[in-house]
């Protein structure tokens, strides 16, 4: 397994220009889609099968009367423990040697289980192809020595691309700097490999609570429930079983045998 690649999206540097969103569409040749009225500049409320990078615009009036306009370029997190990957029954979703998570369109059968298994609501079902789509981490580019199109385009280096073990210290330095500049709410999201989902290979620097950015406070691996529910199912199986056995049992077997005696 090659050294893990990562994308670090530093929202404190984002100017919401959406060059990343367009570059993604262009490189991946994603077709046009109807924009949604979100009340502001954002053109889709969430990821779609045609939007893998989504720039979020969040207006947040402060207590002190000042206004905060939080800008964030959201993307698939390429989780170390990926709900989508574990959910996929066909093996279409796989982990590349770079640690990124990708969907093999030829194998995907459109069961949509991954769609409901991503804690971030990233994967989307494509009704035209009947398959699931999401950010590929520019799989074709990274396998040809290029960085992701979105990172490449970003004019302010708000999206940085590189080896995870190099990006994380960079991110920590940046966080420290912001803290000392007085950004109290600044925090890293998904940088820590001991954190939720074993860390996110696309991690973020946020200026506010994750939920403000439409991110789960503490994402959990959905598959954690499978074992418990399975055991409980066995339990209820035994109960109905006993019930039925009692119902059907031939009392004392006094009534005429059915031939096998």
């Amino acid at each position: 397994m090659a050294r893990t690649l990562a994308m670090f999206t530093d929202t404190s540097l984002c100017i919401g220009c959406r060059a990343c969103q367009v570059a993604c569409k262009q490189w991946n040749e994603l077709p046009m889609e109807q924009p949604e009225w979100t009340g502001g500049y954002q053109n889709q409320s969430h990821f779609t099968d045609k939007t893998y990078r989504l720039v979020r615009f969040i207006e947040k009036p402060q207590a002190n009367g000042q206004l905060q306009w939080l800008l964030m370029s959201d993307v698939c997190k390429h989780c170390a423990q990926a709900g989508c990957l574990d959910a996929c029954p066909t093996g279409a979703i796989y982990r590349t040697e770079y640690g990124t998570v990708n969907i093999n369109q030829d194998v995907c059968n459109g069961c949509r289980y991954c769609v409901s298994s991503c804690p971030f609501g990233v994967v989307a079902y494509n009704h035209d192809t009947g398959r699931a789509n999401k950010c590929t981490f520019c799989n074709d580019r990274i396998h040809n020595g290029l960085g992701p199109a979105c990172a490449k385009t970003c004019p302010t280096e708000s999206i940085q691309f590189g080896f995870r073990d190099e990006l994380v210290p960079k991110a920590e330095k940046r966080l420290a700097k912001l803290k000392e500049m007085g950004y109290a709410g600044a925090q890293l999201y998904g940088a820590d490999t001991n954190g939720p989902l074993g860390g996110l290979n696309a991690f973020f620097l946020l200026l506010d609570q994750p939920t403000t950015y439409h991110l789960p406070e503490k994402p959990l691996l959905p598959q954690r429930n499978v074992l418990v529910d399975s055991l409980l199912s066995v339990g209820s199986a035994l109960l109905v079983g006993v019930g039925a056995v009692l119902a059907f049992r031939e009392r004392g077997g006094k009534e005429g045998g059915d031939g096998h005696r």
Partner: protein
Amino acid sequence: MTTNLIDIQHSDVIMATSNFAENHPVGFQWVMKAKERGAKFIHVDPRFTRTSSVADLHVPLRSGTNIAFFGGLINYAIQNNLYFKDYVTHYTNASFLIDPAFKTATDGGGLFTGLEQTGKGGGDPHLAQTYKRDSWKYQLDGEGNPKRDLTLKDPHTVFQLLKRHYSRYTPEMVERVCGIPKEKFVQAAKLYCENSGPEKTGTITYALNLTQHTNGVQNIRSLCMLQILLGNIGRPGGGVVALRGHANVQGATDLELLYHELPGYLPMPLRDAHPDYKTYLEKVTPKGGFWVNLPKFSVSLLKAFYGDAATKDNEFGYQWLPKRASADAYSHQHMFVDMYKGVIKGFLADGQNPAVGGPNAKLARAAMGKLEWLVVKDIFITETAEFWKAPGTNAKDIKTEVFFLPAAPAAEKDGSLTNTMRLIQWHERAVKPPGDVTSDAEFFVSLAKRLQKMYAGSKKERDKGFLAASFDYGSDPKEPNMELVLKEINGFATEDITDKDGKVVYKKGQALNTFAHMTDDGKTAGGCWIYTGVTVEGPDGKLINKANARKPADDKDYLAHGWGFAWPANRRILYNRASADLKGKPWSEKKKLIWWDPEAPGNEPDKKGKWVGLDVPDFNAFLAPDAKNGDKPFIMRADLVGAFFGPLNDGPFPEHYEPIESPTKNLLSKQQNNPVAKIWQGLDDKNAIAPVGSPDFPYVITTYRLTEHHLSGVMSRQLPMLAELFHSHFAEISHELAAELGIQNGEKITVLSPRGKVHVTAMVTHRLKPFMIDGKKVHQIGVPWHWGYNGTPGLPGSKGDITNDLSATVADPTVYIQETKAFVCNVKKGVV
């Protein structure tokens, strides 16, 4: 711009007054770099934009009150002794004495000495008056040099007049006029002024936010004055950053696709004032400063135009030049008014979409409907090319014959773009244009050659110059070789040029290395003197295209002199002599740029001393600080110093006047608007103007851009990837106004002005807030202007009403720019 985007990273404070992040996102990376270094960032804009979102301080001001704001800053800096005393005393005209007869607007009720009724004006009250400038001049000593008082105490010094003029611009006044709470203004003033001086520098950026007003030029002057007051010009991390428009609008300006100037900022001759070349040169050549060389540049230009046909005996073809009938203007708006009035009968729109982008677009479309013919050369079918399809027009009523010629975009042709920082960068063709598509250069050269054929042998005076003009750029008869075009612009020797001992320094046809080698005897030709040096002859005799140089910045050369070529002479920071003190030493180690090295070998074997440093000196490299004028950095000005006192059509100092359409009367003086602004009359109902404080149009409206779209939208609305980024054409309105009108976010509204109306989606946002103007609540709305009646099929939101149907045909008196940043409107719920 006086500086260079890369240099912004060294600013200690940056004040963006335009929407930097949204409209110049790539250049904005340097602001982010500066911020990472701990620089403070202030954004001045009526709206809270993506630029504000990364600013330390957002200062909202009512559109059209910029001079009140900058005047307030100037006053604050003077009152609190925050200005750069030595710089101001020696590098500006602050110490110069002005004619005692001159009175500032403070003593003239908002007017300067000399406003006169001219009688003419055709019903335009503004045209009926102009300034007589007799008293707007320096007091001269015996030798005819300006008198100075280096103590700046004399009441007639520019400094004292400046102080007096802006004494009314107090924080309280700024609050009343601009609607900026006093505390916020003072906070901004402290932050900016205290971060300038010997140890620190500040940068101010502007664009249309200042230009598109009936006092646009004065807006810009006011910020320039603040910058010289704080010593922020010619120094690292300081400067006036004009963030320009189209990728090559700087190039278009340098080559002067304008009515009042010839390439290289040479004045356009006037028919009556400049009957012959000698008179022209005498009248337009300043007595001092670098411009004394104007004749050399002018003659070289005529040689570039007319080649061998231009000789001493025929005034180098001066008579062939078209001349302006009078000082009258032929600006964009003049043109469309004349079209509408039937004066202009044909129009070639080459890469322009006035049906959407022009101010008062309704008038523009009506005007085109009166043409005999219209040619549109564009890379898309524009609204202009289909102006008869505009909603509400009946094609049957339109007699104009329209031709469309497909044009090749940048990727399909070689050429150069000059970007906002005077940087000339070359691009090579990526693909050949398809079918009949031609590049603009190919089109114009072949058109010219055909016409020359048609008119060959014509004896008419008016055809001579045209027939004499040379259009040969290489062997290919169709396609001009763009590097030869560049060479003509750069300049070359028209015959062998020898030095005093007969040694050949330039052979015939050799590219010139510097405009310093241009002569006024016809031995040199050059299409735009400031570009000289962009392409020079290498040792092998081949042309080296410096616009194509691609050596990025490094620690030795942070200004990246090896990347492209910046005019003039690859200087990256203009007036950089000002980065050193009178003695030629940097004002501070931290802010050093160029300095005088007394030990460096001089220009002659026995001489020593030279200006050296991190940039190419924008100064005579061998002129010692103690030599005559060795301490005067502003070499392009006749008096060699920065100008606080700078006569323009509307005054020597910027004074606040309200926009032509305003919800309030002028609180600074009884003079409501710019006394000499231009308002076109006789346009039927097409240019109705709302009276001051009109109840029918109570709100301020400003129009602007979005990162996702490009100008009139032709290049973005038809590109699905871009067109889908916004749901539909919209107007940004505050929650307060929405509440007053019962408007929900996302519902359709109608925006009306005295000229027209548009239907858009209401975007209710916290990013706009009403202003308190003199105690009264004034609402402002914002409407982007990228939409028109063409768009991407299948994306209804990519089409929309034309914002410019709302704007008016009014102009600033110096460059005649429109007032599309501040006028008035009404807003109605629903589609009415």
